[in-house]
C-alpha cells in the first residue's frame, strides 16, 4: 500500500550556506529497508529540482537507521540572499516526509498510517 514517508520516518533539516542536510530516521527497525530502497538520491533531487537543487548525496548511517541527505543549491544562495520566507530552509524536512513510499501489506499494522494514498 502507498503511504507517506511521514508515517514511518521522522526528519530534521539544517543549513550551512547554500547546502542543506536532512536527516531521515526510521521509527522502527522493520521499516529501515524501505528507507534504504525507496528514498533514493534521485527521488530526493526530483522534489527539490524546481528550486534549483543540483546535487544530492545520501549518507547511510546503519548504526542509527538513518539517512543523511546533503543537498546543494536548494536554498537560492542561502539565508543571506534567498527571497524565500524560510531562508534557512528549515521546513524542507517535511517536504521530504511528504514522499510516497510503498509499504508491504505484511507491515501494514506496524506503521502509524493516517492516510493511505489511493490511486
Amino acid at each position, binding site marked *: 500500500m502507498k503511504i507517506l514517508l511521514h508515517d514511518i520516518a521522522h526528519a530534521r533539516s539544517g543549513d550551512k550556506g547554500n547546502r542543506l542536510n536532512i536527516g531521515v*530516521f526510521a521509527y522502527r527497525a522493520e521499516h529501515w529497508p524501505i528507507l534504504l530502497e525507496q528514498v533514493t538520491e534521485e527521488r530526493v533531487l526530483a522534489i527539490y529540482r524546481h528550486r534549483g537543487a543540483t546535487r544530492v548525496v545520501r549518507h547511510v548511517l546503519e548504526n542509527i537507521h538513518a539517512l543523511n541527505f546533503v543537498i546543494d543549491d536548494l536554498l537560492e544562495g542561502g539565508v543571506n540572499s534567498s527571497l524565500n520566507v524560510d531562508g534557512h530552509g528549515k521546513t524542507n524536512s517535511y517536504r521530504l516526509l511528504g514522499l510516497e513510499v510503498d509499504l508491504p501489506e505484511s507491515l501494514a499494522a506496524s506503521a502509524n498510517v493516517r492516510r493511505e494514498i489511493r490511486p
Partner: protein
Amino acid sequence: MGCGAGFSGDRVDAPQAVVAAIAASGKRGAIMFETLGERTLALGHLARRNDPNSGYEPLLDEFLRPILPTCVAAAIPIVSNFGAANPMAAAHKIRAAANALGLRALKIAVVSGDDVRESIDLDRLERWEGDDVNDTVPGEIIAANVYLGAQQIAQALRAGAQVVVTGRVADPALALGPLVAHFGWDWNDWDLIAAGTLAGHLLECGAQVSGGYFADPGYKDVPDPANIGFPIAEVSANGDIVMTKPAGTGGRVSTMTVKEQLIYEIHDPANYLTPDVTLDVTGVKIDEIAADRVSVRGARGKPPPRDLKATVCFPGDWLGEAEISYAGPNALARARLAADVVRRRLAMRGLAVRARLDFIGIQSVFDSDTSDLQNAFQGEVPEVRLRLAASAADRDSVKQSVQEVLALYCCGPAGGGGVRTSIHNRIRTASYLVPRHMVRPKVSFL
C-alpha cells in the same frame, strides 16, 4: 556538561533548572551557552562600530544574572561564546553584573584571537568548498573570524576561571574545553576528543536534543513543551555519555531526539571537521537506559584538518517584505490578481529589484522564486496571504517596491487587509581556510 542556550534569542529562564540539577548532583559540572550564529557576529561588529562598548550577546544579563550566584557557590564554571564581536566588553559587563550581585573577585577569562579581520588577505586564502566559489565577494569586510578550538577554554579553566568568554569558537568546543580541563584528556587521544566533541555537538542547540524542534502531534509527542528542560550530558572519563535533562521539567530525551540532533548540520557523518578533531559518528550507539536518559557511546576521532575555517562577513543587499491578506469567497483569485498588479507596477516603474510573490497558505516555503508549485494549485482556500519579497543593492528601489503592496489598499482587488511591511539590510558570508600558523589564540584574565 549542561547547556543554557542554543542560540541568541533562546529561552532566558531555561538555564536555572540546568544549574540547579548540576549543583544537586554533587558532581563536577559546567554550563555552556552557544549564542553565536554565522551572522550574529557580523551584527555584533556593526553594533560595535556605533558603540565601542557593545557588540556582544544582547541577552547576556538575562541569561547570567539568575544563575551566577548558584554557579559561584557550587563551583560550576560558565563557558560561552557570548563575547561575539567584543569578548572584552562582555567580560566587563559580566564583572558589573557580578559586582551588583555581591560576587566580588569573580575570575573571568577572555579567549581572543579569533578576529582576523586586520591580518588576513582574502586573495591569498582558499575558499571553503561548501561555498559557491564562483560567487564573487564584494570589497569591504565587516567581520572575519576563525573558528577556534577548545584548547584555550581548557587552559582558562585550569587557571581557575569561573567564567570563560569567547568570540568565535567551534560550538562543540564550549563543552570539550571543560571536559578536557576536568579529565586531563590528551589532545591527541582522538577518540576521547571525539567523545567530548560529540557531547558538545549534542548540547550546542540546547533544547533541540531534549524535545525542542521535535514535536509532531500524534507521531512524536513532547510532554509540557512550554517548559522544556535544557539538556545535560553526563560524561565519564572514558568518554561515555548519558544525555538527560533536569527532573521536573518538560520535554523529552529519547533515542529519537538524540538521533535527530546527532546529524543536525552534519554532512559526511564519518568526517565532521572541527578545529580539535575529525569526528566520525558512524559507529555511535544510542540506547535508552531509563526515562529521559539516553546512552551515547562509540564516537571515533581522527586528526583535525590542517587549516581553520573563517567566516567572513560582507555588506549584503536590502530585503523588503510586504504582505496583505485576502479571505472568503474567491479569495485566491483576488490574491492572484493582486500579485499580477504588483508585478506590473514593478515593471512599469522600472524598479530594478529581484522579486518574488508568495501565496502563504497554499505553497510558499517549498516553492521556487517562480512560483511553480503555487501555479499548479487549483481550488479554493478560506484565506490566503500574499507576500512580496524584493531585494536590491539600493534601499530606495526596495522601499518603492514594498510600497506597491501598501498601495493595494486603495488600488488593488476588493477586500485586501492587514498590510505589514519591513525592510532590512542583509549580511553576506563566505568561508575561507586559514592556515593555523596565522592564528594566535590567547587567554587573558579581566
